[in-house]
């Protein structure tokens, strides 16, 4: 009976896309909270060798994948996700070459606010916070993550294509070409 209860609860956690409260579990299985907790303990023992786990979250229990399998899960689901937007790509590029750097550093290059883009990139796991700069205001420093390397198929940061330092300070002729390009874009927009 105990065993059967844990299996029913397993089914309930499985089909529910969100955490199920102990109260709901007890009501649905027509038992009480103690029985539910006992069944969940049984279940957790059984899930020790599983790729899944039972997590207690937001006032309930939920089945979830174990974090170590996230990359594989990502490979399956990522094709449905959007690729990096251009602002995101630009921002991650700047951080990649200038890390650790602050939001101000990024905006100095991009010339636009990069607040939202930074948040997205941290959510997607491509950038992370890397301490604070010992300067007035102690701004947050950002750096790339291993997932960043993963995303761009790099073994390490040293695999980044070299950027000619002399080219970084933009010279006139390059700017001119740039201007033409920017101009065209502006006109067509």
């Amino acid at each position: 009976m105990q065993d059967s209860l844990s299996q029913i609860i397993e089914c309930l956690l499985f089909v529910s896309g969100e955490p199920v409260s102990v109260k709901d579990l007890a009501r649905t299985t027509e038992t009480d909270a103690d029985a539910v907790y006992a069944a969940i303990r049984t279940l957790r023992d059984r899930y020790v060798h599983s790729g899944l786990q039972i997590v207690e979250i937001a006032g309930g229990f939920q089945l979830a994948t174990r974090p170590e399998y996230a990359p594989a899960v990502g490979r399956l689901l990522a094709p449905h996700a959007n690729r990096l937007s251009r602002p995101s790509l630009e921002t991650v590029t700047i951080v990649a070459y200038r890390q650790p750097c602050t939001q101000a550093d990024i905006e100095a290059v991009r010339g636009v606010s990069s607040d939202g883009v930074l948040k997205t990139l941290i959510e997607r796991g491509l950038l992370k916070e890397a301490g604070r700069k010992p300067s007035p205001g102690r701004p947050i420093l950002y750096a790339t993550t291993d997932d960043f390397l993963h995303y761009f198929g790099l073994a390490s940061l040293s695999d980044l294509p070299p950027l000619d330092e002399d080219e970084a300070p933009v010279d006139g002729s390059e700017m001119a070409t740039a201007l033409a390009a920017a101009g065209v874009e502006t006109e067509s927009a």
Partner: protein
Amino acid sequence: MPPTLAAAPTNNVLNAAPPPPTVRLEAFEGPLDLLLHLVRQGQMDIFDLPIAALCDQYMAHLAAMEEMNLAIAGDFVVMAATLIEIKSRLLLPAPPKDPAAEDEDGEPADPRAELVERLLEYGKYQNIGEMLRNCEGERRQLFFRAQAEWSGDYRLPPKFGELSAEDLLRTLERMLAHVGAGERSVTSVRRQKITLRLKMREVLLRAERADKEGVLVGELLPPAPFALLEVVLLFLALLELMRVGSIVVAQQDFCGDIRVFFVPESERASLIDEEVSEGVVVTDAG
């Protein structure tokens, strides 16, 4: 596949006592459905279809359905006519011809043949349908799960190698090239009052100062960090000045330096400056 008439067993309604005509209350899905029901209910031999009995029962059902005000579609009436036709043909004496020869012509020897074939065909699908009905029931005892939520509960790193390292470099180059033209929004921190008119004046002044040498477009750019708006304004200013003939722009070779030359007022075509005087005051695009 003409049905064999000879070897059929004889457990038809003529021998067995016919079951009382129970009328199903639900509407039949067409005449074939009704006929098949009658054949099964009466345990008739499909290969020696007792058309007279079938026809009578069919008509009785039709009458019952009519009494119960069930809508009887034209299909049912057509089938009734077909049944009566087959019945009457069976009553007629067989024409004095060799039945084998008729078969050669593709003419079915038995007027029931086509109906039997249709019933058999329809019956097959009904049977499989019943099997699928069981599958449906079993399958409905299983529950699945919707696709896992994306970002909230699971941290999903993006696809491996979706972009190459080259893409990073290209992006950097493009960024330098486009001078921050990636986004439309400009932070309010950068709120500045630059007018097109001011920019035009500045460009004109610097071009005039450069005289015959001309001034490089790159030198006209504001110092980094570049504000998109300033670049756009510069570009617009250049266009406007070219339009009114105050400057000429020259490029010696492909992708080479672009130089801006001042055109003295005496050499200009006289154009009215009014349109420009409105000079859009750009403050905050956000």
